[in-house]
């Protein structure tokens, strides 16, 4: 039973560029959440997708957007990258009714 898978594992972008990160949820999960984890910090909630719609959003600017597909997989898009966007981006999936978040191993984004 595959867990949460994320791609790519590492990515280097230049300031001002755009990036797309991908996530496939754990089998049986229909809700996907994205978190940003800066170095030495705890994860911070970006947004949650359920039934292909953004349901909740944390304190992140509109440069951060997402999408959920009918097969429950999800994308995180970040536009106009800033140096401060360098972080580990974590995808977590869950069954809607339960609180257990299952995290992937993340995508390490470096903005130069």
């Amino acid at each position: 039973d595959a867990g949460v898978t994320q791609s790519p594992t590492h990515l280097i972008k230049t300031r001002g560029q755009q990036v797309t990160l991908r996530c496939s949820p754990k089998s049986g999960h229909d809700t996907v959440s994205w978190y940003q984890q800066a170095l030495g910090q705890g994860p911070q909630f970006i947004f949650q997708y359920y039934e292909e719609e953004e349901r909740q959003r944390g304190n992140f600017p509109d440069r951060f957007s997402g999408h959920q597909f009918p097969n429950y997989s999800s994308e995180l898009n970040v536009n106009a990258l800033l140096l401060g966007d360098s972080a580990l981006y974590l995808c977590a999936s869950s069954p809607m009714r339960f609180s257990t978040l299952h995290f992937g191993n993340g995508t390490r984004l470096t903005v130069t």
Partner: protein
Amino acid sequence: QQQVKQSPQSLIVQKGGISIINCAYENTAFDYFPWYQQFPGKGPALLIAIRPDVSEKKEGRFTISFNKSAKQFSLHIMDSQPGDSATYFCAASGDYNNNDMRFGAGTRLTVKP
């Protein structure tokens, strides 16, 4: 945005000792308090969780103690092992907001053999 404060930032314990990590929260609407374990290069993995209707929950060597009136909770790792060396995060969320999990800043635990 941080609503969960975690201490200490780092902790060194001898093998067989007890590791204790503490967290405090502000939002009284929180009612789900998990602890996550994260190894280098991996995502956080749920270790143990508690709801405020109980004051303690034990799973193997891991115990959560919860003090609702003080808005504090802690993780105790008994008989700490070198394999427990990882970063531990406390977190909190509301029952109907469970994917907006608020994490502490993490505690890097090192268990010396």
